[in-house]
């Protein structure tokens, strides 16, 4: 069932498509942490293409390298070897300042909302708009996106006065307000109960479909798999499977799926 091969773990069926059909193209990407004796490899020869407009879920056991992979794609870490093209730009070999530039085109949603307690929902979202130096419209833009995530009546609330799910929705609004072509989310529902987790993901799906965004979600939460166009499984730093929801569910009986996902 598990293919441990260094070869690409799946076929590229869109070889003929132009580069700009893809939000992300990864070739032979490996990643190591540490140096010398402490050097350990966490990603092995990853090959992966994410088509624009797709919602992709990345699952896998704890410690398999999901966060590492998504932070490489998000230009939060320097990619070391292979090729990593995000929104048409090669990230391998970029310096820190260049990585900062790349990040401006990506929306990030984290497990923790990481909002400034001192700023209102609107001001937190405006911080993202200000990156574009869009001073005139920032308030209107923030209000509009907050309305879209269902917080029209909470625009001027500070995080303290919002529920966990509402805070996460503010964080989503912040990630989406600049209409990034690529949205990366690492366990966005982990801090939420089932119902608000579900709401948050449905919301992301709706906004992505409306605006044609590419979304990559890392999750352990089986109940949200149905929003995905595609599910990728990462095991021990290798891409194990790449399939549509049906095949994923069919080939992974719930028991073994759960077991594998929560193995340390």
């Amino acid at each position: 069932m598990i293919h441990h091969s260094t070869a690409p773990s799946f076929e590229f069926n869109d070889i003929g498509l132009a580069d700009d059909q893809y939000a992300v193209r990864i070739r032979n990407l490996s990643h190591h942490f540490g140096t010398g004796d402490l050097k350990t490899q966490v990603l092995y020869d990853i090959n992966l293409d994410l088509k624009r407009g797709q919602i992709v879920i990345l699952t896998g056991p704890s410690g398999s390298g999901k966060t590492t992979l998504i932070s490489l794609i998000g230009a939060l870490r320097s990619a070391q070897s292979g090729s990593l093209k995000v929104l048409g730009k090669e990230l391998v070999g970029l310096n820190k300042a260049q990585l900062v530039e790349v990040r401006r085109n990506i929306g990030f949603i984290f497990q923790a909302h990481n909002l400034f307690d001192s700023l209102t929902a609107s001001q937190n979202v405006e911080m993202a708009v200000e990156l574009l130096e869009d001073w005139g419209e920032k308030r209107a833009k923030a209000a509009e996106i907050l309305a879209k995530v269902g917080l029209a009546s909470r625009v001027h609330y500070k995080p303290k006065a919002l529920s966990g799910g509402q805070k996460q929705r503010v964080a989503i609004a912040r990630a989406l307000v600049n209409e990034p072509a690529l949205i990366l989310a690492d366990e966005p529902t982990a801090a939420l109960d089932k119902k608000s987790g579900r709401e948050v993901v449905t919301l992301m799906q709706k906004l992505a479909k409306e605006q044609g965004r590419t979304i990559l979600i890392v999750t352990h939460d089986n109940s949200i798999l149905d929003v995905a166009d595609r599910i990728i499984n990462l095991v021990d730093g290798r891409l194990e499977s790449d399939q549509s929801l049906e095949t994923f569910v069919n080939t992974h009986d719930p028991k073994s799926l759960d077991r594998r996902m929560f193995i340390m």
Partner: protein
Amino acid sequence: MRTPIAWLNLVHEKTRLVVAIAGVAFAVILVFMNLGFLGSLAKTAALIYNQINADIFLVSPQALEITTTKAFPIERIYQAAGVPGVERTMPLYVGYLQWRNPITRQSRAMFVYGINPNDPVFVMPELRSPENQAALRRWDTVLIDRLSRPEFGPQDIGTVTEAGRRNVTIGGQYSMGGGFASDGTLIMSDQNFRRYLAPIPLNLINLGLIKLEPGADPQQVKAELQRILPKDVLVFTRQEIIERDRDYWISATSIGFMFTMGVIVSLVVGVVIVYQILYTDIASHMKQYATLKAMGYNKRFLFALILQEAIILAVLGYIPGFIIAVGLYELTTRATAGGLPIGMEVSRAVLVLVLTILMCSISGLISVQKAVTADPADVF
């Protein structure tokens, strides 16, 4: 407009903000007080000489400042009187005298100026009133400085007490101030001076005062005086002797050093307090800073953010610090009955503001090291 995140972060934590402002204000007050005393040292020197009606001063080379002089022969001013450009020369005798408070019977040292009653030694116009002139010429009668400390007792005209074991009567009043070296001053005639401070012969004087004719060049007269006078006296213009006294207080005594150290220590304390506050603030916002970096904000933005917080703290702390310092200056002036001329000056207010901003910026620069290490890879 950019969201004023530095400001919002600071005002969000009210208690922390109050502590920070109090800390900065504390440092500001200490700096103001130290600089104030240092400044009044300088002013005191000027204050006394500016009341003396002379353009050139003769003193013994062993004199340190006006209250620590060494007497020299009165012939020197007779010699000086012959120099072209000199209008008039006057002897000035100075010394300390134990003055008894007639009410508490406690004795304290008064600084005494002895003058020839016919000489216009001081510029204070009230000394020329017929009453004061008459009083100066009476035996065992003195004029008392209104700015003398209250511990010396009543200053009413006619008050009789003891000075140097002799009876003395207050015959009049004037306002001058004793500065750093004395808590109170008296003016008396040279004849009285000789008796109260016996055994002092009047042919040995402490200062030689030289008044120039209108239009005479002080530097030229000074050069001529230096040429003709023996080496037992030094010749100074008014500005020079003021500077000499000031330098003595500031450099030769530990007073200047003490106040300078006071300023430095206060600033270091301020740096530490502000650093503590900023560091705590940064530590509690690392996730948010990392998020800002993930969103695409660069190091420079975080750098500016922390520096802004530092400068806001500087200004917010400076304002109450300034107000309290003005109050303390007032209090000091009152406590010393005006003898210690300590007051707010624009240049000092600006200097301290700059020092405060500098102090907070140093704290900001130290603590910003942590903020810029916020790693966007850590937030996932």
